[in-house]
């Protein structure tokens, strides 16, 4: 839907397509990629120093039982972490194992952090992805409509509920829903799903478990998307090209969908791609409340330990997701908005 809506206002013929192909120069791609890599390097440095060069005794923070760990265990951890070495040697060995894709071993699960994260990533992608796609569609429609029919009862209702819902943390909504529905037995209120890859009934079971968490996530994103969409629709509403379109005698609906919407969609599209990056980390609290077996719940469990290597790995994954999607949105933008093309 998005793609077709954006292509329409281009001039007819092959010219538009060709311009679009040349929208971004290789040099710009290189520069933006380097910036993203710089940010990633910053995250890696932060990740190292936060966990290693904390004031006091890092081995106590690393010890599974905190400050009550016995002396022998603490000495063992010190050796494992290479804490006796100067910090630049520690940093170098950390970098070397990172490049080899080794994030250390999880203390809670006694296996490599990388494989733990790989096991938990798909439920998060499924849950957050579904919520995001639903929210994008509904939010776009609501926001476009209330912006276009600015000041009507529909607009007032839609935007005031969006502002209210924007103030509700998604996990709080989830908690209240769970407590309210716990007696009714409509939806499962605990974890305990079957592996969705096995059978069809199992897939249905997963979908059933997903309704509530997905609803909570989607509601908050709908609020955000519709507010953005509404304000960019308001920006376009009095543009001269819309007056022209109306003067040509086009129906109000056509003016909105064919002329105003493609332009008003630009900020929304950026926001959408940015939120894909945040989706991985955004579900931390919702997954916790609903015991959804994804990266968010994993973070909560790692916190309780605390399972420091796992937390470190998760932080890296969460940040990398945002950085990569940021870069993607950045590179995509010249293709969808002619105004930021090579100048």
């Amino acid at each position, binding site marked *: 839907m998005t793609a077709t809506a954006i292509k329409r206002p281009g001039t007819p013929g092959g010219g538009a397509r060709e311009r679009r192909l040349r929208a971004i120069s290789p040099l710009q791609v290189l520069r933006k990629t380097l910036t993203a890599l*710089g*940010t990633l390097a*910053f*995250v890696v440095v*932060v990740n190292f120093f*936060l*966990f290693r060069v*904390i*004031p*006091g005794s890092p081995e*106590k*923070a690393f010890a599974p039982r*905190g*400050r009550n760990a016995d002396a022998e265990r603490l000495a063992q951890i010190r050796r494992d972490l290479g804490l006796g070495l100067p910090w630049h040697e520690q940093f170098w060995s950390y970098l070397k194992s990172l490049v080899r894709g080794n994030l250390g071993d999880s203390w809670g699960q006694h296996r490599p952090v990388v494989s733990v994260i790989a096991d938990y990533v798909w439920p998060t992608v499924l849950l957050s992805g579904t919520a995001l796609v639903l929210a994008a569609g509904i939010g776009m429609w609501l926001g476009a409509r209330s912006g276009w029919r600015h000041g009507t009862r529909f607009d007032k209702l839609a935007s005031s509920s969006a*502002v*209210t819902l*924007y*103030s*509700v*943390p998604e*996990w*709080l909504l989830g*908690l*209240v829903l*769970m*407590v*309210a529905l*716990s*007696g009714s037995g409509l939806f499962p*209120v*605990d974890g305990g799903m079957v592996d969705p890859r096995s059978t069809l009934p199992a897939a249905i079971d997963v979908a059933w478990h997903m309704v509530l968490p997905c609803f909570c996530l989607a509601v908050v994103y709908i609020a955000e998307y519709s507010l953005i969409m509404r304000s960019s629709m*308001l920006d376009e509403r009095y543009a001269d090209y819309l007056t022209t379109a109306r003067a040509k005698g086009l129906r109000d609906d056509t003016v909105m969908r064919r002329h105003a919407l493609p332009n008003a969609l630009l900020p929304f599209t950026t926001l959408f791609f940015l939120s894909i*990056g*945040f989706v991985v*980390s*955004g579900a*931390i*609290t919702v997954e*916790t*409340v609903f015991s959804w077996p994804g990266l968010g719940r994993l*973070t*909560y469990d790692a*916190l*309780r330990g*605390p399972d*420091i290597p796992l*937390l*470190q790995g*998760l*932080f890296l994954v*969460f*940040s990398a997701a*945002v*950085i990569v999607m*940021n870069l993607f949105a950045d590179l995509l933008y010249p293709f969808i908005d002619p105004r930021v093309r090579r100048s």
Partner: protein
Amino acid sequence: MSETLTPRGIVRARRRAALAAFWRTFRRDREGMTGLVLLALFAFVALAAPLLADESGLSLTRATGPVLAEPSFEYPFGTDKYGRSVLTLVIWGSRISLLVGLAATLISMVIGTVVGIASGHFRGVAGGALNRLTEWFLVIPFLPLAIVLATVFPPDVPKIVAVIIVIGVTSWSGTARLVRAQVFSIEERPYLERARALGAGHWQQMSRHVLPNVMPLVLANTTLTVSIAILAETTLSFLGLGDPLRISWGRILDNAYSGAVISTGSWWWVFFPGASVVLVVLGFNLCGRAIERILDPRIKSRV
């Protein structure tokens, strides 16, 4: 009367007039006034907590009420698993939640304003480096960073201070970016050129000329940052990273979640603290949006 004749007096009179005009516009804004009334209500509850409820009602061991009682005349918000009145918890919790939210916002605004002004003012390597730093903090997802910081924070620092610092340190980047953009436009104005021509140093330029001009923007942004900070406090407390010794709204929700509130279906234990969080955050958001509307002439002409 005589004070208006001195330069400082003129400035003060002009500021007072601007403030009065702002208040006249704000009073006509229904959304903004709704937010203000909400905030005034919660400010009153937080300040008057000792008059409204007895602090001994927070103690686990000295709780006198029935266990998990539904809201009644005696316990308007019901009681929790330990027999404490949820109303008392919510009243005393408002103090910690608002305190953490406001203190964290203060830190966030100071860092954001200083970094924003400096990165907008210094055009060379220093400005570029500060701008890069701002962008890094904008990109790193807020909640994971806050979780990591709270986990590795030195354990001998009181938890409540740790939470305030963590939220303050993770939430300043948006303000810094806004301020930086504003500084760029201010630096182009003739009075700064005049100040430079008269030999004003960097400190003089930034503190006497740039800062007063970005202040309205910073204040408008503050109201929105407070709501983010309060939500962050609630979320961190819910994840068990808050101060275990002090009751905040997030802590009540954490207690309820780990105290099997879902299986017992005692909705009042989560509904009232949850509604308080939402109403306060809504209050700050409504006020912030109203201030933005008044300060941004582009929006004003349209509404």
